[in-house]
Every structure is written in C-alpha cells, then in structure tokens.
C-alpha cells in the first residue's frame, strides 16, 4: 500500500517542502557549529563514514544533501596508521584539539559549538572478562558534561552505538542529559536503516512474542541486533515497561530451548524467510532453503547463543545470534491476534554503508530542531540489557532478575527508518 507519506518520500522536492525547507531557511543564518569527539578516524571507521557525511554531504530523499552544519573542531583519541584526521582537518578547515574540552571550546575559554557528535567505536581499547570492548564513551561524554557545567550552557549531543558497555554508566549519562536539559540522541543505525519489507509493529499493538536473529561478535554486533529488536517492540501496547530478567544461554541449550517453547520456531521461520544470505546449501549452490525446519541449523551454527529478555509487562523477547547460518539481521514478532510481522534490517554494502546516512539524517535533525527524534531511553535500555546478558554469560548462564532496568518510556508514533 502506498501512503502519501511514502510517495512523498520518493519525491525530492516534495520532501524538500516537508523536512528540508526549515533546514534551508536556517541555512541563511550561519551553519551550526559541530565538534566531533572520536576514538579514531581511519577508513571505514564509524568516524569516517559518519563524520565525512557532515563534510561532503550524503544521499537523502533522492538528493545529494549538504547539511547546513560546519564541523569546526575534532578530538581524536588515537592516531594509528591510516589516520585521516589531519588530512580531513586540513582539507575541510577545522582544527584538531588535544583535549575534548579544547575541542568544545575551539581553543577558547567557553563552549564554542552548537552540538557534539561522540563516535567512540573502533580503535585499540582493552576488553574485559565479559568480552566487552571498553570504549571510553562515558568518559568522553562526562568531559563534555563537565564543559557544559563549567560554562553554564549545554548543547545537543549524539552518542554513536551503545551509551556505554556499562548499564550503570549509561544510566548516569541519561541522568546528566536530563539534569542539564540538553537533547541527547544515541544508538545504532539499524533502527533507522531501510527495512525489507518496510514495516513497523502497528502502534499500540499487543504483542505475544518477539524474536531477533543476528550475527557477529559480542559486544559490537549483539548490541545492533538488540537495539533493532528494541525499536520494534517499544511500539507495543503500554510502551516499554522495563526489563524483568535476562538470561544468556549458549550451545545445545539454545536448540533445546527452541524445542521446549523457550523461543518460537514459528518466529524463527519468519525471521529466516527474510534473510538474503542463508549459508550451508544456499552458499553451496544458491538454493533457497527452509533453514528453520530442515534440520540443518545445528550443523551450521557451532556456537549459538540466545539472549532471553523478559519484560515487566510479561513480553518475552529473544535474540538468537546464529553465526554460520546467515549474514543479515532479521526480526519477527507475533501480535496477540496471531498475525506475524517480519522484516530484514537492511545493511547496504561497503564502502557506501548508506545505513549511516540514515543515522546522520537523524543527528542533523536533532541539531537543527533541538529535539532528539527518538528517546535515548531506547539506547539506554539496550545498553543495560546487553550488559546484564553478558553478566549471565559469565555467571554460568543464570537467569538474572533486573529490577534496576525499570526503564519506562513511550516510543514516538511516527516511523524513522529508511532514507
């Protein structure tokens, strides 16, 4: 069904009228000044493929869109071989500062930017015993907060991916943003990338169960998968009510849980039916296969894991990480009326990775409007549930009650995915 909104999405000029015109009106005034705070700026790092979009524009609604923003300063924590930060600074006329405070003040005495984009992904950082990479996002954020406090002024902040590997640090970050009343947007690009097909959970629908299938390592890729699932289930009746318990199981226990109704095989079939990259026989000779039901899954996936997340309103949600079975991220949920909604969160290929254009568009909107287009609580709860799942993993896969994840919020009704 083609809605007027969807059609307008295909029209460059109609979209101009709807969303970009306010931006263009502002373009008459000086562009908003942006500081980028990042771990590393090398080819195909998040800082490169997101940061570059502020510098050279990006595809949006059938136009090559140049945001009315000016990157004026950069802090980069590490400069390994292949560092591009100096070259970008020279070419695009911004300054690399040795500290975050100096970047935010552009070398002066007071906050001198209109927004901060924190990209703490990639670079050489230690892992902890839970397998988490200790990216210093919390530390970067707190340095920004410290400048805001000292200078008596706050500006919008975007934080790429999870707020922190630590649920407690994530909580503090959100609390600081509320205390100082600045717009705070965060998260993965999966919630805002294209979907195949382009579906949402009907707003306010009662959900019976949800299942996400993902691939890749922990904790970079399971975060993406969990937040993709979160952006779907948060639309359910009553909104997000918080997490009651989590449990991460691995190996044969995952298959046994499926046999015992611990997660829905019907939903696995729906999710896998959305995959374009099934492995095994499909890789061998490109034949499609009913991987959820043909018995091949345990042969293909040597080390499955299931992230079992029980919500305060009773909803069961499960992330299955199935390395070896597929190469994409797919979701399925059953509504109370029995209908099954399923989709693939489409990750366009390298090097363009245009999913990050979808995310940069949200960042741009927050900077220009002063409002985060979706609640940071989505990312907070996802960060925290992942952190606790990994506790379960290292504590003998036990079920953990999580009263501290009593994070309640309402999702916006409008959809934000696709370009």
């Amino acid at each position, binding site marked *: 069904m*083609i809605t007027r909104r*969807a*059609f307008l*999405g*295909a*029209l*460059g*000029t*109609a979209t101009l009228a709807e969303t970009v015109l306010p931006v263009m009106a502002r373009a008459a005034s000086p562009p908003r000044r942006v500081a980028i705070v990042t771990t590393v700026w090398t*080819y195909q790092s998040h800082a*490169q*493929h997101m940061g*570059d*979009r502020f510098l*050279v*524009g*990006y*595809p*949006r609604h*059938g*136009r*090559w869109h140049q945001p009315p923003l000016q990157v004026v300063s950069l802090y980069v924590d590490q400069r390994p071989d292949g560092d591009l930060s100096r070259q970008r600074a020279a070419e695009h006329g911004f300054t690399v500062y040795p500290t975050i405070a100096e970047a935010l003040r552009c070398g002066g005495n007071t906050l001198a930017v209109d927004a901060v984009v924190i990209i703490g992904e990639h670079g050489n950082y230690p892992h902890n015993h839970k397998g988490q990479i200790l990216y210093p996002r919390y530390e970067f954020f707190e340095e920004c907060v410290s400048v805001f406090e000292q200078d008596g002024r706050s500006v919008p902040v975007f934080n790429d991916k999870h707020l922190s590997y630590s649920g407690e640090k994530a909580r503090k970050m959100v609390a600081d943003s509320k205390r100082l009343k600045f717009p705070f947007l965060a998260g993965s690009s999966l919630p805002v990338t*294209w979907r*195949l*097909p*382009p579906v949402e959970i009907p707003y306010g629908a009662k959900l019976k169960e949800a299942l996400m299938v993902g691939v890749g390592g922990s904790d970079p890729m399971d975060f993406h998968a969990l937040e993709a699932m979160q952006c779907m289930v948060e639309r359910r009746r009553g909104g997000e009510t918080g997490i009651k318990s989590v449990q991460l199981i691995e190996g044969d226990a995952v298959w046994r849980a499926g046999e015992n109704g611990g997660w829905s095989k019907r939903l696995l*079939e*729906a999710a*896998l*039916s*959305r*995959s*374009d*990259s*099934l492995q095994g026989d*499909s*890789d061998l*000779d*490109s*034949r*499609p*296969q*009913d991987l*959820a*039901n043909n018995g091949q899954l345990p042969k293909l996936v040597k080390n499955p894991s299931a992230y079992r997340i029980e919500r305060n309103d009773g909803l069961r949600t499960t992330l299955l990480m199935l390395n070896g079975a597929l*190469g*994409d991220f797919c979701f*399925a949920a059953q509504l109370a009326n029995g209908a*099954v909604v*399923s989709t693939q969160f489409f990750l*366009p*290929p*390298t*090097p*363009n*990775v*245009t999913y990050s*254009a979808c995310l940069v568009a949200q960042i741009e909107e927050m900077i220009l409007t002063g409002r985060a287009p979706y609640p940071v609580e989505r990312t907070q709860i996802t960060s925290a549930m992942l952190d606790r799942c990994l506790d379960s993993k290292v504590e003998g896969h036990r079920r953990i009650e999580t009263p501290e994840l009593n994070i309640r919020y309402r999702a916006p009704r409008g959809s934000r995915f*696709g*370009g």
Partner: protein
Amino acid sequence: MMYCSRRSFLAGTTATLALGPSAWAAERRRPRIAALTTIYHKYSHSQHIVDRFLDGYGWEGRHHRPAMDVVSLYVEQVGDNDLSRERAQRHPQLKIYPTIAEALTQGGSDLAVDGVLLIGEHGKYPVNEKGQTLYPRYEYFQQIMEVYRRTGRTAPVFNDKHLSWNWDYAKRMVETARELRFGFMAGSSLPVTWRQPSVDLPFGASVDEVLGVWGGGIDGGDIHVIEAMQSIVERRRGGETGVRAVEAFRGERFWKAMEAGSWKAGGWDPRLLEAALSRSNQLNSPRATYSNVFPRTEDLRRLAPDSYAYRFEYADGLKASIVQFKGNVVGDCNVAARIKGGDIFSVLFYLPYYTMRNFFSPQVHHIESLFLTGKSPYPIERTLLTTGMTAAGIESLFQNQRRLETPHLAIRYQPTRQSTFWRT
C-alpha cells in the same frame, strides 16, 4: 503432491475455477510444470527460478512452497558445473528429457504440462557484430508452439528477460500467443523486486522526462534498466503510447550529452541524474579514503570512459534516457522521473546479491500466479516494447549512433493499476 497443503491446493483451485476450467483443476491435481533452459548452474537464471519451484522460498514470513510441481526439464548445455542432475535426483518427480517436445509431453504424445518456464539465459551462445548474445528463446518458443499446435492444447508460458535479441522474433512470439490464446508473461525481475523507497509512480501522473542508470552491458544489461524504467513510466497519464525514435550516444558524443544540461540541449536533465545516483547504495567513491561522495563529471569520465546512453522519444512526448556507466560508477539500477510541475520521483531497484538472489522470489511469485490463473499479472506488451527498445538502441549504436525512427514500436497498452513490485 509432495508439497501440497490443503490450503494452497484450495487457493489454486478457487483461483482457476473463477477464471475458467483447466485440466489440472478439473482433475483436482496440482499443476505440472515444464522448465526449458539453456543451462543450469549456480547463479544461472534457471537455477534461481526453477529452484524456487523445487525447494520453495521465503515469502511473507513463511518458507513458501509453490502449489505445483516441476515435472520435466530440458537443459541444452550440461557442463561440469551443472546442477540439473543433482536437482532431478533430489526431486524424484522431476525428469530430464532430451528434447523440448518430450519435456512438454513427458515422453508421450499429448501435452502433459500445465505451464512452461522458458529460461534462455547463460550458456555458451554466439555473439553477433552488434554485441547481442543469440540466446535461442525464439527457437524454444517455436518448438513449444509446434507441440501446442500438434496436440491442440496450450498452457501458459513464462519467458525470462526480453523475448528475443531480435525484434521480428519477439513480435511473432506475442502474436502467436494471442492467436493460440494462452497466458504469456515475460521480462526482467527488476520491475518486481524491492524498491527503495518502497513506492510506485502515482497512477496517471504526468511525466515529462525520465532517466535510468546502471553499469552497462549491451543487450543483457540494457534490457534490465529499460524495463525497470518502463515499469515506472507506463503508469503515466494515458498509459503507454509506444516509442517513436531512439538515438544512442558513445565516446565524446556521450560526454557532450552529459554536459549539455538538458534534453533540449542534446542530453538529459542533470537533476534526474543526481536523483538517480542519490538513491544508489553502490556509488563508487571517486576520492581515495572517502567512502560515499557524489561524483563530478570529470570523475565520471575518469571512472567510466566507455559509458554509453540511449535517448528514447515516446509517442506522447515523454523523453527517456538510459545512461549506462560502463566502468566503475554505480553498481545498482536507479530511475528518476520528472513529474509535470518539477517534482522528481526517484527509486532504487534493489537486487539482493548474496548467497540467494532473492529478487527472483517476487518474479516466481508472479509466475505462480500466471500458472494458477492462466493470465499474466502484467501485460506482455511491456516486455515486447522493452525488447524492441533494447534492439533499437543497439541498432543505433551499431549505425554510428544515428537517430532511428521506430514506427514499429507504436505499442499501446495499459498497465495494471495495482503495483506488482515486492513490498510485503
């Protein structure tokens, strides 16, 4: 009956009874399908299409199994990488026959199938002086017709991609299907695959100019872009009126057209090119260390020096450019159309190119509908026209890019109002 669920069987029966009796419905059995193909190997079109009938495919949240059986297979070229033998072994209802006639009659004297897949793509076939691969689709079709005429029975036919490299052949194929009154469907998978965004041209919109881009490929690549573009513009006000002239551009003439700045000045509207390239997920970056940059004309020249284009003039005045960046500019097919008043509609035709080529799934879904209802879900005239446009464009290239009048392409038709691309 190995995959027959009661539900899918009844769905098929009802659909056909509503449209008139057919042998399989009267006999209360599943339709039997013959597949005729040039070659059957991994990533060949026959593998993608026939495998979906044999093994099912993901569809609307299920692993869907078509309610019909491929019972006979003809494969002209069997090489070391052949998969047809493995498929026949794994699917006992499927038998391989040495001739097309035997495949259609299952070795008997009467037509013994209820639908025919004609997949003449891939395999070793001669290439003519114009660059067209002489796939024997017309020859296969003629052999099918011999059986139809001899037995006095017909069955719906699906022809993969364009009808033929040769316009006269294509015309004869459509005329014969009309004469013998069987359902005839054809074409590329691009018109029916996912789109980004997931939209169609509003039915009856007035379109002034349209442009399609991709990465080149005389004939085999051209038909895909031309048909993707056609599936958009056929919905314009008044429906399809046909094409009256074509002009090809290559070499310096191409770059002159690129820089002309408008159709009137001998090129195309650069805003349409910007719109089309801004839908791409595979835009080659012209600058080292940058991963997604919009190319300047000098970048295009450097990255795709052998690019070419076709400019088509439609009978109702619509102007269409197919810009083929031969080289490394854009890896996906995108179309942009300027609607009267200046709005620009643009869309990517997304082809998932992973282990499975799932853009064949919506095409197979429509072929199933052809076999169950006896009617093509979209008009064969679309592919007749795009076959003729492709051949005419190549002819203009061959004749030193001379503008050619195309009175034979005065093909009028009305598209289906309902969109047929993949969106569920």
